[in-house]
């Protein structure tokens, strides 16, 4: 395949990566609820069944069977790509990820692998109920044996998904439905598939290191722009991969800025941000202000837009928190 440009939405980028995976890796199969004939509830897998026939199929509403079948097929050498429609639904089937997929390589000392990719999307949307709104990445980043990424842009939706499919570990790709239908942008496709891992610094600055991922990348960048006008410059690191996590890049940046903020949509207690903070302070990186974590408070997620607005971080909550951080005297 030759590298070239294309203009796609985030959702379109996912579709392009799936198309390429099915095309180049003939051991891939793709299945999940409503993914084949209807092309997915969000239309992300449209056209794949007509292009790839039986290798793309619909399943019953049986997340345990879906993930378990992926484990079994992967053990036999297939490279399944499955979709769990909402990350909230993995909760009916966590066993297949944690007790099953994550153990395959370790138990067999690498003789058997589970090279499966599990796509899911998470996050809140106005009106979405509490069972369709959670950001649960922390439940998977705590599990040794699983890989986890959270693409935030169309380019990453393409690159990270391909890296996940090519990777021999069970890998979870956490998308976000708020991003699916964003504006079309030009991305590169057809280039070499990347290795898993690696963050990307999307905005450069010297006063604060802001680490973020997924749905909070865009508001964090907006916040950085606003702060820049005020003379506060922010390194905005889009972590992209939570496992493997790019501790090095984060520590390097914090060493320069002396300040660490972590921003995500998940509720705060026990969120992955606590790991990021702990990682930096354990490493002994000197800080000029206490680190700040910006996320949803510890609540269930309400449906009413007015309530939701009081819960999920946004540009102004980020700006305010960073302002407090840089003006604070210690």
């Amino acid at each position: 395949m030759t590298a070239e440009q294309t203009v796609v939405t985030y959702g379109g980028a996912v579709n392009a990566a799936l198309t390429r995976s099915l095309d180049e890796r003939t051991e891939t199969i793709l299945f999940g609820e409503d993914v084949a004939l209807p092309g997915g509830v969000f239309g992300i897998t449209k056209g794949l069944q007509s292009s790839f026939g039986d290798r793309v199929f619909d399943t019953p509403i049986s997340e345990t069977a879906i993930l378990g079948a992926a484990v079994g097929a992967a053990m036999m050498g297939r490279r399944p790509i499955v979709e769990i429609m909402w990350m909230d639904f993995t909760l009916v089937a966590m066993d297949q990820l944690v007790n099953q997929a994550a153990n395959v390589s370790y138990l067999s000392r690498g003789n058997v692998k589970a090279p499966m990719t599990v796509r899911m999307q998470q996050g809140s949307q106005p009106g979405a109920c509490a069972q369709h709104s959670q950001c649960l990445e922390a439940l998977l980043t705590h599990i040794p044996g699983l890989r986890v990424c959270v693409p935030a842009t169309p380019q990453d939706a393409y690159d990270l998904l391909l890296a996940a499919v090519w990777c021999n570990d069970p890998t979870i790709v956490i998308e976000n439905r708020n991003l699916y239908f964003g504006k079309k942008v030009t991305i590169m496709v057809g280039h070499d598939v990347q290795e898993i891992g690696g963050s990307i610094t999307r905005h450069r600055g010297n006063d604060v290191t802001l680490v973020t991922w997924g749905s909070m990348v865009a508001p964090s960048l907006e916040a950085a722009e606003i702060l820049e006008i005020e003379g506060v410059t922010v390194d905005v690191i889009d972590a992209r991969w939570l496992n493997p996590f790019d501790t090095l890049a984060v520590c390097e940046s914090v060493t320069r800025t002396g300040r660490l903020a972590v921003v995500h949509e998940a509720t705060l207690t026990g969120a992955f941000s606590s790991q990021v903070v702990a990682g930096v302070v354990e490493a002994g990186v000197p800080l000029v202000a206490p680190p700040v974590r910006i996320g949803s408070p510890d609540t269930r997620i309400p449906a009413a837009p007015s309530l939701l607005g009081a819960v999920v971080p946004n540009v102004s909550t980020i700006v305010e928190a960073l302002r407090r951080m840089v003006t604070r005297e210690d």
Partner: protein
Amino acid sequence: MTESLLDHYRVMWRIRLFEEKTRDLKVRGDVSGSVHLCIGQEAIAAGALGGLNRSVDVVFSTYRGHGYAIASGSDLTALFAEILGRGAGLNGGRGGSAYLSDPDNNFFGENSIVGAGAPHAVGAALAGLFDGSNRVALSAFGDGAMNQGAVHEAMNMAGAFGLPVIFLLENNRYSELTPITAMVGDVELYQRADSYGFEGIQIDGNDPTVVLDAVRSARDRAARGGGPTLIEAMTERLVGHYVGDVQQYRPAGEIDDAKTREPLVISAQKLLVQGFDDVELKSVETQERDRVASAASAALQLPFADPATALEFVYDS
């Protein structure tokens, strides 16, 4: 006291018009989030509630549950208010269209995780063995939910313990966008009850009287200690899985066909045979249209949920 077909006809219109109004509100942007309408399936909720002892029995439904709320007696304004994210909504706007409940009317609510409500009904029935209520618990869910582990475990446990649970399967032939026939090895889903050691029956889910009779006899058996029943009510969705679903996956003519045997049509036919006239039937519809319209307008006047309350009640204290 048994509800008459005319009573059902009224409730079904109430549900239908409520759903249509909800769709309009959604389309014009007043409702945020996904909305799953039960248009075409009204006879099931209307009939089922008629077959229960509403002072003690409890109901658990899915996200497609506005009909159960209405048949349970929920205040229409509070129901609209919930869907519209208002503070005076049934759940203060916290639940929204897909996760609302009205415990004061023994409606323990919708559930947006497929199959997850079935074990709750088992627990509610269990509780009744100890609290002296002689409660029967009804769990409503779709055809697709039959393939979810939770429903299996709930049915097995209810069967093993002989619990007073009614599993009410609304078979509208689709799970979201996928036909159920492709997702099971045997399409006669009611027969699964055999495996669990209790009775399963298949009924016409578009006739509220048939639903009422089936639920009532299941209730009687359950209350006598005869254990659970699986009722497969055959029906059809006259609309998309959610508002906005363009339904390209449905064969041409399917919905038009379904419209010839939908609940309001067949009930109207029967009522005419029973001697009611068009004017009487029309007046039911008109009264309900007014009721729904005024509830919706009232709800639209209510203030949005107060952001300052967003973090309340996560814990008891």
